[in-house]
């Protein structure tokens, strides 16, 4: 894949990747780093995608994986997560809804984002995340309960 094609994917899906990273790492600095790492992997591996949809799915999963790896690194765990992350979330102090959204566990936050923001169906989310559809549905239901989202499907 040429850099120009990759740049097109970058322009098109940067926001999606950034949001996925932000939902998982919950701070701007690491979200930027992980976004950078995701697109670096895209250049490094240069996979061939049949459709833009498949490229987007690949980017979402790769972004998730990058973030999960970071969260497991030993020097990352050394941080007092409560202290540092609370400070970051407080930067959105005027956005109570966002604070609530960011408090979701990662197993709920990504399916919720893909469903309500990106508009994927549960079957599509299941395929992207390699989960059973029933698992995705259960997690969405749980997320709705936590966020008290009123159904508007």
């Amino acid at each position: 894949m040429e850099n120009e094609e990759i740049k097109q994917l970058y322009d098109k899906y940067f926001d999606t990747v950034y949001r996925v990273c932000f939902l998982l790492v919950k701070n701007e600095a690491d979200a930027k780093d992980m976004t950078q790492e995701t697109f670096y992997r895209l250049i490094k591996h240069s996979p061939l995608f049949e459709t833009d949809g498949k490229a987007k799915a690949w980017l979402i999963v790769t972004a998730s994986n990058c973030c999960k790896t970071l969260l497991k690194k030993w020097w990352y765990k050394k941080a007092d997560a409560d202290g540092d992350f609370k400070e970051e979330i407080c930067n959105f102090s005027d956005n109570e809804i966002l604070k609530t959204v960011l408090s979701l566990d990662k197993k709920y936050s990504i399916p919720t984002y893909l469903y309500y923001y990106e508009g994927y169906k549960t079957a599509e989310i299941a395929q992207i995340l390699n989960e059973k559809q029933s698992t995705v549905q259960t997690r969405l239901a749980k997320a709705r309960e936590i966020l008290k989202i009123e159904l508007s499907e």
Partner: protein
Amino acid sequence: MKTNDYIKALESVKVQKNTKEEIWQNVLNQEEKAAPKNRRFSVKRFAAIATAAACVAVFASPLISSGIESLMRKMYPQSAKIADKIETSVFEDNDGHVKMTVEEMLSDMQSVYMIVHYEALDETGKEWLANRDFTQPFISDDTGAYFDFGLGVRLEEERSGTFGNSEIEENRTENERWFYVTCELQHVNNENKRGAFGYYMTDGAKSTWLDIGTNVETYVYELTSDESPSDRFIPKYLTVSELSFTIFAENISVYSLYEGSGGWRMESLISIEEMTEVEESTCFVMADGEKIPVAINGGMGCLEPDESNYYCDLLLFDGTHDYFNEETQSYEHRMIDAENIVGLEIMGVYYDLK
């Protein structure tokens, strides 16, 4: 909360346009720093190796137990030197529609090479096999590992590394597909000597633990010298096998850790030029006096000191012994006679290993 409230909240999570451009430049810079000789395996490189191997005459070799000619020796010709170490019929899974078999494996836990065979058992399996994309990323519940490129091997704790798979097209039929899977994993001395092998079956992505540590022996040497090659690090240990090597060191000023927003961060203190100078001056010294430059696929990483890395806090260099062939413009597999390495030289400082 209404759905629109949720959407609006997420819309506020974004960066400025100049930040977006800055990140793009960082991506390009990061890619540029991974010069060809230091680049890890990628899917494109697999294709280059596969093509080269197809042009090599297949060795007249003993057939493996299933009667199939060794594809490992075809894809990795130099593995003939240690043919007796290639493990066969490693693992099999069967869901009634397809059978997946790890037919061959060669591994020192840092490099893992596998021949993976899929066979359709019925029409459902045949259709699945015809349409399956074997490079799709997934996370498996079986072992908790993630596979960002489909078929591959991950270690416990998801230590970073790269892997990929290359389909052996000439063996593909309506009912069978074959893959050459290669994995380069960062330093390992895992007591369990196991890795998570990720693969697909018709009912989804799966993974299982495989013993990957008993195939090819790794030699461990403590590095001692009156001199030090650099004031930024002190080399401490070398592990080396026919397939790969790692040099562990003590960090003095290659990197520093500091506490920043969002947690601890690592700052690199060494320039690319300095790193390259060290890389290019590092070589194995063989018993016959030959000096073989080490083929570095990754280098200079921060480590959490523990028993598995000899309590070192710096991964100086690691990699397989592959080298970049300027003539073919592709990476080629190579093996080094690990038993006959007598020394390691870094920036002119010699470490006697015998």
